[in-house]
């Protein structure tokens, strides 16, 4: 009698555990509709409307999108891929992250599709398509706009203090004093997110030493981090911090919350160095700031005696879609046909343009100048298409482990916790030839 009761109880526990183990059949990656993960802000609206209209027209190849904040995405995608439960369409920046996915066999080789359908990759600017390749093979295709890093500024504040946008680094340092004198923060900066700081280093190293300096770093050449251009760039950054160039509390401002952008349009900061995705974000957050003509933009200033061409740019050539290697055949098929017919169709391009972003598609000049933000967008398109060098953001170009050390070290430079020499020494140690 008693034995039976015990047995029942044990059985109940066993059932719970088995039921637990069978949760397997739940949301595993290999069933159901195709999924896509993307980022909030920037071109989010374009993605949303594209998936909406795609799903309406192709109910049998529907794709369910999910949107993450930037930093959250970078961590989530990794754990999900490790669990083989990533989305069908993976969002990336190309470069080092994409390479680590390729090395682990997580993404599909698209080379055959690209060869079979010349339009698939051929419609994009070749320099941009290259960012989606590893070795000779194509693993990712562009899904949004070119994103050069641009110096945005608040025209109203410039008029108020009677200043001109900086052409050289010396101009820039002079502006710092001027704005500080007027009680305005010269530059907004989302320092808690760390990567916005990197834009300063990327541009300064390029302006001082030219693109070869980072090319050596990316090629893991020994001691490449102690190139004089890197040391000088960090010294200049610390001089700018010392002069009070960045907004009060920059180290605790998170870019994911757009608090840095808000400082620009609420008139608390005069300038803002950021990728061109800030423009569509601003259009969503505060369209009036643009339509009232308060937003100005210019290129990063030149540095006296620098080797780099002032027309060089840094940023992201675009973002990319890759297809998960562990997705089911139906999901892969849906994703592939979306890449062919959904991404960058005329309507898609129009939405991007309307949102204030320029896609890396060939021969768009006339379409761009006809769009509402035509003047601005034409300049960005020209800037990106004509740049002698378009350097991918370093944190994306490097191996993820190295990128983490880079961002942490750089934030310590901004906080003056370490010297430029210490930064270079630390980074040299991350080079594994």
């Amino acid at each position, binding site marked *: 009698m008693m034995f039976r009761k015990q047995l029942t109880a044990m059985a109940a526990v066993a059932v719970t555990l088995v039921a637990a183990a069978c949760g397997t059949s739940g949301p595993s990656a290999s069933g159901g509709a195709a999924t896509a993960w993307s980022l909030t802000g920037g071109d989010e609206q374009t993605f949303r409307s594209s998936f909406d209209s795609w799903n309406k027209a192709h109910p049998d190849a529907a794709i369910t999108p999910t949107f993450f904040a930037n930093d959250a995405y970078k961590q989530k995608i990794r754990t999900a891929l490790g669990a083989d439960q990533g989305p069908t369409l993976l969002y990336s920046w190309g470069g080092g992250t994409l390479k680590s996915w390729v090395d682990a066999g997580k993404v599909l080789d698209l080379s055959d599709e690209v060869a079979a359908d010349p339009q698939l990759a051929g419609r994009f600017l070749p320099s941009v398509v290259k960012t989606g390749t590893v070795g000779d093979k194509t693993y990712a295709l562009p899904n949004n706009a070119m994103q050069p890093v641009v110096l945005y500024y608040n025209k109203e504040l410039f008029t108020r203090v009677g200043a001109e946008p900086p052409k050289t680094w010396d101009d820039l340092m002079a502006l710092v004093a001027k704005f500080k004198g007027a009680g305005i923060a010269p530059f907004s900066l989302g320092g808690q997110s760390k990567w916005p700081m990197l834009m300063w280093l990327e541009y300064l190293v390029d302006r001082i030493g030219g693109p070869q300096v980072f090319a050596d770093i990316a090629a893991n050449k020994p001691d490449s981090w102690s190139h004089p251009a890197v040391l000088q760039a960090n010294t200049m950054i610390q001089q700018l911090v010392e002069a009070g160039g960045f907004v009060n509390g920059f180290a605790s401002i998170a870019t994911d919350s757009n*608090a840095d952008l808000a400082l620009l349009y609420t008139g608390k900061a005069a300038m803002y160095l950021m990728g061109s995705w800030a423009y569509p974000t601003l259009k969503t957050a505060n369209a009036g700031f643009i339509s009232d003509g308060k937003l100005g933009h210019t290129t990063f200033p030149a540095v006296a005696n620098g080797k780099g061409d002032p027309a060089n740019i840094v940023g992201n050539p675009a973002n990319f879609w890759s297809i998960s290697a562990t997705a089911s055949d139906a999901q892969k098929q849906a994703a592939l046909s979306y890449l062919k017919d959904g991404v960058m169709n005329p309507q898609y391009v129009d939405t991007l343009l309307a949102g204030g972003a320029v896609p890396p598609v060939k021969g768009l000049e006339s379409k761009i100048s006809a769009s509402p933000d035509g003047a601005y967008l034409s300049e960005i398109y020209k800037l990106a298409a004509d740049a002698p060098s378009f350097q991918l953001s370093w944190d994306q170009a490097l191996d993820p482990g190295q990128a983490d050390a880079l961002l942490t070290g750089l934030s310590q430079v901004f906080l003056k*916790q370490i010297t430029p020499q210490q930064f270079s020494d630390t980074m040299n140690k991350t080079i594994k030839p």
Partner: protein
Amino acid sequence: MSTVSERRGPTLLMAVPALVFFTVFALAPLAGVAVLSLMRWDGLGTPSWAGLANWPEVLGDPVTHEAIWLSVKVMILSWVVQTPFALLLGLLTARRGRYREVLGVLYFLPLLLSSAAIAIAFKALLDPNFGMSQALHIAALSQDWLGNPDLVLFVVVFVIAWQFIPFHTLLYQAGARQIPAVLYEAAAIDGAGPLRQFFSITLPQLRYTIITSSTLMLVGSLTYFDIVFVLTGGGPGNATRLLPLDMYLTGFSNNDMGRASTIAVLLVVVGVALSLGLSRLARFDRGSQQEGMG
């Protein structure tokens, strides 16, 4: 069978479900973390054997050194800040009364909030451009609380104290309520003032509570993760990269699970050593008392 089990108490089978859960999802991972500390794993592929290679890397890494040092600082500061407040508030709330009922709800409010909620609230409140400093134009309160590397650790300690003082207050409140009133009455007859009473009655009577609360505080301080993760993300720079956060970032952001596991083993060793040491202290102090809270 049944006569044996009746003589010796209930059947052991009754302890099996708890043991199974505990073994599978707590003990096995504990062994797992030790094994993973001997492996290389990037989180994407399959783990591969690395022997002891992770250990010299972790022990020689200045970032981890800094993290250990920060964790020790936070541990000590937290104890120094939280203990006197919790003790005083515990004594205060131990007395009963109607208005204390209302106050009680407010006092213990932080107990109910998640670390994420607390961190988000303080992050907004302490924002240098849109937060508190815009309201009170008092220089001392308009610091760059979360952006100044020299200040931020104290802010983190403060926010943690805000979250945990109520819990320790409850412990002291319970302890204080068990002190026999006659002790105070006798002391009052002897002419002892409140200060003498506090040092000669209250403190000695509360010594077990103090040990329990301190153990929970010190060992607990090794687990501060979520609040720091949401509040500062370890920054600015590495100024608040405490040991658990260092482990998380090494594993899930830097994609080096082997090294992260090595840091985790360090955490376990320090945690167990601390709680064993403190419970031994407690046992030594009270003779045969059985439970060693850890």
